[in-house]
């Protein structure tokens, strides 16, 4: 249904990025995000290079620009917390607000760099999940050392996520179907805030009870199919020499960029 299309960030495709080994992609993405975090605020050439890398990867992955920008907007509400930087960093005064706050050049640089860093990181992580199916991504995380119990749990979580989100949506549909409202003033739907919260609490409670019952059924079905407490997954093929070299070269390149940024501007 359209629901799963909304939720699953994977965009089917056969681009260069889609075909990369997931372990290579995860390694590069983490290296890139670390490099972005290490880049000093005023290292503009490094910043431009990082923007260019991000754009190049997004284009190679054949991601639609609209989706890239919409996902980048995810981190934007948090940018509010960087706004005070505009006024609290001392430096060259740009202009003074009527009530005495001073906007400084250095503050503006810091603020812009925080927002840009979060954007670039979000876009890169978005490309990773748009080009890698979740079970494959989890396999890569397992290969990179994430504990087996955690990976197995997330695997099951992913399998039932869509079912339970649909369940939650049905609960909300049912509630809005019960809550008629009138345009006439003084005749609004529902009771007090506490009453509305209680109704929502009841919905959450029944969602959890249904989830528990579903977990019991799932467990019974798994046992019937020979489950013995061990989740078996297909082993990924060992990394080829070519893939090993590309991971190392990619990380070395990113390390050089980070090192240059720190040396020249740090």
């Amino acid at each position, binding site marked *: 249904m359209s629901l799963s299309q*909304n*939720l699953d*960030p994977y965009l089917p495709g056969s681009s260069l990025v889609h075909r990369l080994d997931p372990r290579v992609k995860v390694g590069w*993405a983490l290296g890139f*995000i*670390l490099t972005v*975090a*290490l880049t000093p605020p*005023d290292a503009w050439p490094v910043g431009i290079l990082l923007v260019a890398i991000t754009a190049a990867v997004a284009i190679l992955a054949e991601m639609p620009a609209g989706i890239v920008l919409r*996902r980048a907007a*995810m981190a934007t*509400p*948090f940018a509010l*917390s*960087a706004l*005070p*930087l505009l*006024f*609290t960093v*001392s*430096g060259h005064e740009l202009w003074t607000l009527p009530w005495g706050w001073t906007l400084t050049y250095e503050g503006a640089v810091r603020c812009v*760099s*925080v927002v840009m*860093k979060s*954007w670039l*990181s*979000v876009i890169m*992580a978005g490309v990773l*999940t748009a080009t890698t199916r979740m079970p494959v991504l989890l396999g890569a995380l397992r290969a990179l050392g994430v504990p087996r*119990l*955690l990976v197995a*749990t*997330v695997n*099951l*979580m*992913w399998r*039932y996520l869509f079912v*339970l*989100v649909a369940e*939650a949506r049905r609960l*909300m549909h049912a509630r809005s179907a019960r809550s008629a409202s009138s345009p006439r003033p003084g005749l609004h739907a529902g009771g007090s*805030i506490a009453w509305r*919260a209680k109704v*929502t*609490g*009841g*919905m*959450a*409670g029944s969602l*959890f*009870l*249904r*989830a528990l019952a*579903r*977990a019991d059924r*799932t*467990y019974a079905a798994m046992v019937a199919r020979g*489950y*013995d*407490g061990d989740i078996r997954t297909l082993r990924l093929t060992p990394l080829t020499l070519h893939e090993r070299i590309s991971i190392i070269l990619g990380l070395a390149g990113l390390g050089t960029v980070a090192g240059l940024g720190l040396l020249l501007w740090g």
Partner: protein
Amino acid sequence: MFATPMPMHIPDGFLSVIVSLVLWGISVIVIGFALKRVNTDLEERQIPLMGILAAAVFAGQMLNFSVTGGTSGHLLGAAIATILLGPWPAMLVMTCVVGVQAIVFQDGGLLALGANLFNMAIVGVTVAYFVQRLIQKLAGNRPWVTVVSGFASGWLSIFIASLACGLQLALSGTSPANIAIPAMAGIHALIGIGEGLITAGALAFVTSARSDLLTPEETPTPASRSLWVGGLALAVLLAVISPIASAHPDGLEWVAEQQGFLGRAQAPLYDLMPDYLLPGISNEALATVLAGIAGVGLVLIATIGVAMGRRRSSAT
């Protein structure tokens, strides 16, 4: 796109590298310990149970109710997972939820994931566990106690986690402590009410439908006792440090400098603060946070008082 309007998932870029790495280290150690506990304590049915409940927490975060003027109350789910599953599995469930939100939906960064896990999976769950056990110990196991402890643990877990979040932003030099901490605490003192109300409502529903799920815990093991103490310590520590930090941001700067948290470029950040660039906000900040803590204290005292009264009257 699927977005939970929770201003608690820190994206990448807002935390300094050192703060991120330290919190990653703490989270890995604590979650590793939780994995070990769950592996030894619980049988094989735990994997489907935790996986499906993690999906339910994720889906439950969509449930909302309108409050006023377009704002709405939401569920984060740490408290309800703790009460239904017990602290260690709940920690893993929240780890899965927060991890999937970061990796799949970019709700929270990857480098910042350590900090987000610390705030929502570790602080949220341990504080919820501590509050719930405390109230239950004092008041016994009655239906209304479940509801009250649901509200208190939901609210306090959100509030304390937001203090941790504000403190991390301040330590990273992203927001000055006297703005970040009161802002986070203020917003989440309100968001926490929604969390508390939904948690209480959900527990009331579960109590009436399947009260067997909420049977009191077996005799406390040393590990669960240490978790209880940990929850208490985290709550007290964060509640004490944050007002101090927001009242004396230069003190935080001193700590940060001693630890080498702030580079040379960031050091001037706080130089302006002692001159009260934003006049009066420092005292206001202190007042806000102190009011929050006083609120926590009042809720706890009122709950304990009522519980004691009930216990005495039921004894006679």
